[in-house]
């Protein structure tokens, strides 16, 4: 810590902090036009100069990058400094046209504010008329470089945070401007960070043009409903319509958003939204009243329960539900419907990761927080193409590698954008990632690089693990998987010897059983290297949906009750019996796959599907479709008329995340609030629907007045949520475990030890690596960064930038097949199902691999995929 005085205020800040940060800590504002805490200080605007007196000498220097030192005395606004700032502003105005009346940024323009603040009455410098480029052709974003003040924040955030470099400074000196190459329209991630960070109106959101002045907009602070990173969103609204989305710089994501967060919200305004309930009459879904539809649903379930027993009902929920909805859904299914046949996300996805982590570490969750990634020295990515799935987490890696020179070890079947950073790429076929991790563990054990203090002391099962790894020598694994043996060794050494190392796992929907194995291997690796329970260490399991973690916390599985209680554990069951005033089934129910298989064979008669679209999203589309067709009674509750809804007997329109209250629990266990925007609410919230159905089915217990009341109950029965209440969530939520209302949460799990006493190292299974035959391609079901699943497909803006699925191939394979970009190809599975789509060249794809985004229902890609077969082998031909 260093202690200094800023404008007479004494303040202590961390060593290495800038004078600007010290001033902020002291509550003193220093004007600046080129500084943002996410960026490396740049020092271009020269407005932040201050007078620094140290060791008897006074000097002026910029505050944004000069470090604060002990004993400095800082003056931030002497007459000389203010005069200098005025000159600086006048110089900026020299080439900044004063189009303020028609500028999109008026009222929210830093330059305007500072000019006003410094009362610059006229323009003493001859104005410079220059013409810089305008770009009206790009998606979402408009460039008017005539307004640019060359602060470089757009260029810097694009490179330093996003890792994109889609825009650059071009030309030099007076002619410097910001552009793509040859002024072409943008072709990038469309994160909109450049427009958001621009302090003036040079880069702006197209939707704001002529729409609303910034000061006319109302602000709704909520949480993003796409992926699991829990970014704060601020919906800027006018006339009950969102026109712009940004994010508070004080939020956990520090104001950064990805394309889905910033532009994806249009899904809520989609024409595909369900507004009126539908009931099947004479084989046709027909619009019905709420009364009619709810009665039909309740009666249908009651009928099946009565005639076939509760075991004949299966329920599929979703990680899109809020914690409160998930909790009530679980209660509804397990108590009112009376069955434990409940699952979500196909029973795979994020759930499988937590299932792998929990037995080893004691918690089915990530152990650390997202913002710690930037300070990790080594980052291990297991099957995690974060550029596509979790762009904001990718930003953390860009920052770690870019400015702190962290190294990245990537275990993946494809090259990702992150394999280009400094580090090691270990190519493992889909589903074989854990084999490489275990091989690293083997190397670490053989070379004695493990954390000797932890083994025995904090962890058990070391010998069993070692024994199970006999086959996992780097040589053996390297030859089986075709990896360089030294790369495995080097990766193991780098990871083990790093002062801090984090493991990042990310799962799409399709990676089934391998997810558990990957997470287990990762947990073992973290424990034996001692990279656990410390800052910038541990494991992050990044789910695909906004409430991936919450769905696990709320126990939306056949085995669990809320708060990780086991259904088959009598004490737990008793607790919930009395809380829910019911008698819970004593044994675990069927999982998603078993439910659908049951429906296919007739064992399951009724299906209740909430916010889930199994037909498009689950593996083996044909089986899933058949299951829904075979089932006697199907109720689908969703915001869209999805492929699954089309097969339903009753369709209940739900409202979107923009229209309801509730909480999501992010991948870093942060419980965050969802608040409704001012837009008109369509449908009813899932919570309301559960209550209405419960009431119709004779249960009088469902009398929650609001999500807040549900959370009050959750905090009573889930230990890790014990201290969570709506009052205490504040702007940025609380990270669980939160023991009581005074507890602000713990971002690092397993800090003093493990909840189960010692970590229980899990042994590896037999080494079994599936491979593709000659001439077969491996189908890698990728994720497009513009889509994340069901909601994004209904977002007009996301469809605008990514309208159709394209198969990514490498040059060599394209040449072999004789196809060029834009040609159509056909992929045929081993069972003869096929799909057709266009090809595009990609750097990500390696020879023998074809990457296809999995979120396009029109493609029916899931018809090629079988349950529990992570490695999908296909025949590829020119169509």
């Amino acid at each position, binding site marked *: 810590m260093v202690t200094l005085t800023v404008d007479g205020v004494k303040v202590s800040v961390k060593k290495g902090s800038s004078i600007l940060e010290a001033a902020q800590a002291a509550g003193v504002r220093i004007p600046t036009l080129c500084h943002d805490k996410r960026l490396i*200080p*740049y*020092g*271009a*605007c*020269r407005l932040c*100069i201050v007078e620094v007196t140290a060791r008897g000498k006074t000097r*002026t220097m910029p505050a944004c*990058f*000069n*470090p604060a030192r002990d004993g400095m005395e800082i003056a931030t606004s002497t007459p000389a400094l203010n005069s*200098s700032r005025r*000159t*600086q502003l006048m*110089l*900026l105005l*020299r*080439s900044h046209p004063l189009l303020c009346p028609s500028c999109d940024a008026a009222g929210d323009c830093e330059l305007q504010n500072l000019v006003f603040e410094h009362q610059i009455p006229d323009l003493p*410098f*001859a104005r*410079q008329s220059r013409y810089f480029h305008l770009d009206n052709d790009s998606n979402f974003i408009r460039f008017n470089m005539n307004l640019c*003040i*060359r602060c*470089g924040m757009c260029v810097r955030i694009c490179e330093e945070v996003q890792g994109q470099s889609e825009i*650059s*400074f071009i*030309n*030099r*000196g*007076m*002619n*410097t401007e910001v552009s793509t190459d040859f002024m072409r329209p943008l072709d990038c991630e469309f994160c909109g960070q450049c427009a958001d960070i621009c302090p003036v109106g040079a880069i702006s959101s197209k939707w704001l043009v002529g729409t609303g002045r910034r000061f006319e907009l109302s602000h709704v602070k909520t949480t993003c409903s796409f992926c699991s990173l829990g970014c704060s969103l601020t919906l800027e609204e006018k006339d009950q319509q969102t026109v712009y989305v940004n994010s508070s710089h004080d939020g956990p994501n520090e104001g950064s958003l990805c394309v889905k967060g910033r532009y994806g919200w249009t899904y809520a305004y989609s024409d595909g939204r369900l507004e009126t309930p539908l009931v099947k009459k004479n084989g046709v879904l027909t619009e019905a009243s709420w009364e009619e539809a709810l009665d039909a649903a309740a009666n249908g379930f009651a009928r099946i329960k009565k005639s076939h027993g509760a075991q004949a009902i299966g329920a599929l929920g979703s990680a899109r539900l809020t914690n409160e909805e998930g909790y009530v859904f679980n209660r509804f299914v397990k108590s009112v419907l009376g069955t434990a046949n409940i699952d979500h996300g196909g029973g795979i996805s994020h759930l499988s990761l937590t299932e792998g982590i929990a037995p080893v570490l004691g918690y089915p969750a990530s152990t650390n927080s997202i913002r710690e990634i930037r300070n990790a020295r080594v980052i291990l990515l297991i099957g995690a193409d974060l550029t596509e799935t979790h762009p904001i987490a990718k930003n953390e890696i860009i920052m770690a590698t870019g400015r702190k*020179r962290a190294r990245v070890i990537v275990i993946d079947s494809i090259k990702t954008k992150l394999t280009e950073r400094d580090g090691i790429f270990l190519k493992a076929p889909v589903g074989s990632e854990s084999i490489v991790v275990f091989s690293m563990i083997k190397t670490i054990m053989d070379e004695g690089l493990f954390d000797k203090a932890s083994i025995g002391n904090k962890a058990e099962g070391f010998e069993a693990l070692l024994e199970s790894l006999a086959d996992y020598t780097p040589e053996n694994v390297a030859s089986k998987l075709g990896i360089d043996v030294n790369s495995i060794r080097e990766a193991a050494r780098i990871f083990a010897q790093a002062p801090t190392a984090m493991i990042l796992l990310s799962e799409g929907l399709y990676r089934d059983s391998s997810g558990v194995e990957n997470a287990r291997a990762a947990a073992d690796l973290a424990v034996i290297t001692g990279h656990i329970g410390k800052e910038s260490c541990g494991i992050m399991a990044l789910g695909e949906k906004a409430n991936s973690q919450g769905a696990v916390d709320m126990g939306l599985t056949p085995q669990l009750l809320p708060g990780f209680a086991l259904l088959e554990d009598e004490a737990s069951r008793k607790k919930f019996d009395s809380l829910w005033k019911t008698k819970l089934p004593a044994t675990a129910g069927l999982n998603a796959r078993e439910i659908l298989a049951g429906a296919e064979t007739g064992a399951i008669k009724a299906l209740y599907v909430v916010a889930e679209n199994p037909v498009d999203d689950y593996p083996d589309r044909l089986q899933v479709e058949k299951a829904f067709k075979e089932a006697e009674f199907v109720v689908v509750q969703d915001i869209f008329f999805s492929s699954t809804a089309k097969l339903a007997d009753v369709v209940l329109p739900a409202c979107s995340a923009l229209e309801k209250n509730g909480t999501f629990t992010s991948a870093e266990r942060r419980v965050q609030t969802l608040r409704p925007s001012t837009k008109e609410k369509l449908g009813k919230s899932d919570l309301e629907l559960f209550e209405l159905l419960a009431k119709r089915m004779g249960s009088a217990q469902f009398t929650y007045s609001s999500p807040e009341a549900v959370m009050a109950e959750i905090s009573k029965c889930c230990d890790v949520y014990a201290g969570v209440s709506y009052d205490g969530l504040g702007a940025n939520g609380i990270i669980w475990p939160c023991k009581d209302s005074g507890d602000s949460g713990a971002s690092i799990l397993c800090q003093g030890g493990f909840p189960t006493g010692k970590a229980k190292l899990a042994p590896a299974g037999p080494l079994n690596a599936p491979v593709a035959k000659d001439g077969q391609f491996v189908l890698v079901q990728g994720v497009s960064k513009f889509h994340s699943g069901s909601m994004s497909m209904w977002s007009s803006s996301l469809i605008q930038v990514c309208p159709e699925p394209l198969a990514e191939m490498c040059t060599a394979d394209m040449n072999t097949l004789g196809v060029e970009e834009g040609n159509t190809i056909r992929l045929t599975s081993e069972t003869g199902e096929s799909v057709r789509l266009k090809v595009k060249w990609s750097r990500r794809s390696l020879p023998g691999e074809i990457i296809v985004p999995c979120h396009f229902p029109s493609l029916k890609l899931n018809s090629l995929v079988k349950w529990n077969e992570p490695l999908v082998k296909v025949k590829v031909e020119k169509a």
Partner: protein
Amino acid sequence: MCASPYYRMQLMMCAGTGCIASGSLDVKAALEKELEKRNLQDEVQIIMTGCNGFCAMGPLVVVYPDGIFYNQVKPEHAPLIVEEHVLKGRLVEKLLFKEEATKSRVPLMKDIDFFGLQRLIVLRNRGLIDAESIDEYIARDGYAGLAKCLNEMTPEQVIEEVKKSGLRGRGGGGFPTGLKWEECRRYDSFPKYTICNGDEGDPGAFMDRSVMEGDPHSVLEGMAISGYAIGAEQGYIYVRAEYPLAIQRLEKAIADARDYGLLGKNILDSGFNFDIGIAPGAGAFVCGESTALMYSIEGKRGMPRIKPPRSAEAGLWNQPTNLNNVETFANLNPIMLNGGDWFASIGTEGSKGTKVFALTGAINNVGLVEVPMGTSLKTLIFDIGGGIPKKRKFKAAQIGGPSGGCIPNGMEEVEIDYESLQGVGAMMGSGGVVVMDDMTCMVDTAKFFTNFSVDESCGKCTPCREGLKTMFDKLTDICEGRGQEGDVEFLIELGNHVNDTSHCGLGKSAANPVLSTIRYFRNEYDAHIRDKHCPALVCPDLIDFVVLEDKCKMCGACFKGCPSNAIVWEKKKVAWIDREKCTKCRTCIQNCKFAAIR
């Protein structure tokens, strides 16, 4: 007859860029042909050396053993030289250097003031060795300095020796080299780099080019010594794209040194590894700034970054990096061989050793000179430089490139060292000395330099990007007759603002030419603003050309040269200028031998 022929005579042919441009390669070819004709090719050898420094008089040939200096040699002189001097031992009088003052011919190089008053450390090998021969460099104690370091000294001792020498960075900043190395050595992060800044961007400076072309190994050796001292195994030489010959010679030198194992692994069996790569620049003055230069090597736009961290901590690819310029590195071999104390005995209290200057502009002996620190400007310009041509008056000397300041007539007694120059508002810079005579308009000069800085500004920070342009616009107004009272005060205020708040060295000193010309030539500014007159007759909008009847010799030179037919002249009549047609291009002034037009 004999394995290695013995040459009784060697003709040292200058092959610096200047002399090559003046045709020295043609002269060489002619001489070779002539020698062959007389069957002298085994007896007399022609050696291509680096720049001799006396560029104005090129092409140059120095004949050894006697050291006879021939200048302005043309190919047609070859038979004469061979016949008379080589064969018969008679000097070719007309090719000898002619002393401007005494009008006498001086045969011996060492007797010419231009050479005689210099003290050569950096340029110790100039004109004496074949620029492309590593053996000749070794013969002149080349690589002995490195050998001594590797063999007898620890890196700490090397740094101590450099500190003792008092050597300061010759690139302009004047930061003590030893301290820089010491700091870089302290950081415990590998790899480290040492970079040679050969991006000599100052117009009017070509000393680094001369060293890289004429004595490339001295740079390589210096870099290897610094690599040993700081713990770096890789060096880069950043060379301007405009210096193809330097790149070519450096490439050969690096290849030769690798061949001998003087670069590469385990140099001289010491266990020290060091190699050097060439990073070509691509034309950006700001890349002379250390952080911009490093970005340029990394393949980025050369825009200076913030410090801290300093390059010694996080430079090239964020690794500890030492950066010195060419001249600094060239000083290291003599320092290592003769000791720091020896070096420190030369020069002044604060500035040790010698400094190479490029004398250009309105001066007789345009060229490259090396003098001990503390030599007076007067000695430099009048004794070594031979004074101002055409008997014009010395008006000012601009030292330190476009960012330097002007030293006016009357202050030429100033001793040239880092502190004294700063005291008079100039700076050492890389050592360009541009001499201006009374035909130079100081407002126009300030405008020229400001324009240079505007063009070369990277555009990053506000004061440099916008402020300099504002100043340039104001200077243009003044030069074009739109000056107003208060403009000078405005320039001073804005100039100080730009200097105070700019980010890098370019911006911080970019206003110096304006500030220093205002300081010493305020009257010229006032004349432009108040009288709308340019006293030096340079600014076209503020002058009318007239023929001075009493001086006109009616030769018609002005008439013949006028591109716009504005001059009316008949034989034996005084010319006159048609103001309607005159474009004020100054061609007639240039053409008039009698100074009859003004």
